[in-house]
């Protein structure tokens, strides 16, 4: 089969690989129909995630058709169309039994601290091959994949694999009360869905912060939010405080993660000198723009071992910091209902589609945010 593989920072190529096969009785093998490129794939592309080995296949947002079924799989059969959560979860461990599917302890041999197994996200999350390929192995098929309703298209539900539930969980962890003001840092795909979810949870005011004019324009069109381009103001924190009556926002959401812009010093320390794990500027701004006693919700991806974060400010302001990788499986039925009933049209954020062989070009476009790119989707088998 063909698959998109990593060959070093800034270098991904489509290569031929052996087809995946059933390796465990609870596996299925999928023929991938749609695979999206996630903002967090860029952290891999930039070599920021430890234990990213040469030749690994990327991609953790995908839909597909079941091709092969392991002997102990009970809920899926050949030909079923499914959307697959990015986290691989057993459904039975201490954490899965408590709803923390992102923290499953039976799918990632490489780490006790860093999440469950994840498709196409380095050996730090288990080294499982990703979905930016023609075929992919899916472990614990009775737990992760969700069948796509017959009357729905793959692209309508593709983002249930990660970014839609992640954005929703971001808003949910913010514990938004009716009428509250929410600032969402980052207007990429996760940020867009966090903004939308904030409205669904009763926010009175939502402010989107980013530096890419096209993304802010899209956020305004897509979600009707107020926007702030932080490169157009002297001091984004002061500006946001002024915009929120001097006190700050009730809830701040970090939908940016480890490659934030906005601080030359932090970028030098984190990205050039590797003295911290990327850049936590967005998180610092969350802490600095939340009101005293407010909530900060973190879904932007950070890695080990550490980051410079103004934890003293957070402590002295009495902030509540909440964070996790998304427990995708918990949100699937609820968000599927929102999509079916027309409250969320996730497909609208797709701006570009590419065949698999042009995946490196898609990465380049997505990385540069060029040509109004919000979200790229790969079609490993064409339109079929």
């Amino acid at each position, binding site marked *: 089969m063909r698959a998109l593989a990593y060959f070093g920072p800034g270098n991904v190529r489509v290569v031929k690989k052996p087809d995946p096969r059933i390796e465990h009785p609870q596996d299925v093998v999928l023929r991938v129909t749609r695979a999206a490129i996630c903002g967090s794939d860029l952290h891999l592309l930039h070599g920021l995630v430890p234990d990213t080995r040469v030749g690994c296949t990327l991609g953790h947002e995908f839909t597909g058709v079941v091709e092969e079924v392991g002997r102990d799989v009970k809920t899926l059969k050949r030909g079923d169309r499914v959307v697959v959560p990015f986290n691989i979860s057993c459904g039975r461990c201490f954490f899965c039994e408590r709803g923390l599917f992102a923290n499953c302890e039976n799918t990632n041999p490489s780490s*006790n601290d860093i999440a469950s197994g994840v498709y196409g996200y380095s050996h730090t999350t288990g080294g499982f091959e990703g979905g930016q390929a023609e075929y992919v192995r899916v472990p614990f098929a009775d737990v992760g994949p969700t069948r796509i309703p017959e009357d729905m298209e793959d692209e309508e539900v593709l983002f249930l694999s990660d970014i839609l539930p992640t954005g929703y969980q971001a808003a949910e962890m913010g514990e938004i009360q009716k009428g509250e003001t929410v600032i969402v840092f980052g207007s990429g795909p996760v940020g867009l869905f966090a903004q939308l979810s904030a409205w669904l949870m009763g926010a009175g005011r939502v402010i989107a912060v980013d530096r890419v004019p096209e993304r802010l324009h899209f956020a305004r069109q897509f979600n009707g939010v107020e926007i702030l381009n932080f490169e157009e103001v002297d001091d984004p924190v002061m500006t946001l405080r002024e915009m929120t009556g001097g006190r700050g926002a009730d809830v701040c959401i970090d939908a940016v993660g480890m490659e934030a812009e906005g601080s030359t010093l932090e970028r030098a320390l984190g990205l050039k000198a590797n003295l911290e794990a990327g850049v936590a500027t967005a998180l610092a701004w969350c802490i600095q723009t939340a009101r005293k006693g407010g909530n900060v919700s973190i879904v932007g991806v950070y890695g080990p071992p550490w980051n410079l974060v103004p934890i003293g400010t957070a402590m002295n302001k009495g902030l509540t910091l909440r964070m996790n990788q998304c427990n995708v499986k918990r949100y699937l039925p609820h968000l599927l209902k929102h999509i079916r009933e027309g409250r969320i049209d996730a497909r609208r954020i797709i701006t570009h589609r590419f065949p698999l062989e042009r995946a490196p070009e898609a990465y380049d476009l997505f990385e540069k945010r060029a040509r109004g790119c919000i979200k790229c989707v790969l079609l490993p088998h064409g339109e079929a």
Partner: protein
Amino acid sequence: MSTDRRADGLHTHLPPAGPGRVDDVDPTARPGVPMEHLPEPFPTAPERVVVQRPRVEVLQIPGRKKPVWVVSNAQPPRGLSGRLRRRAFRIPEHHPQHWMLLLAADRLEVRLTRAKRWLGFAAGALALWAVLRAIEDR
């Protein structure tokens, strides 16, 4: 902010969402609240699980009490970078050295892969040159 979404040209594509729409305003309507619920197995989770035997070397973090149930057989550690990775996996992950060694192994593997590729090209070019030279000499 205006709640008349049509008036300012916003939301025309998405009438049910946006300001004023509060489907999940009640925290009990939110599926992830509370984030950690009382323990219960996922309804379709397997009752009996076979522990997968890896076909290749799979590095395990120290301190793990039992093997995980599924593993990946892709990209086992190999060569010099593999030696560094094995060394990293002798150090618990709360020590920064674990991650520094892994990052070093990543960079080394990329450079060695690139060098191997260039060596391949160079060897090919050299062979071609030698053949052409031999033909010329005849």
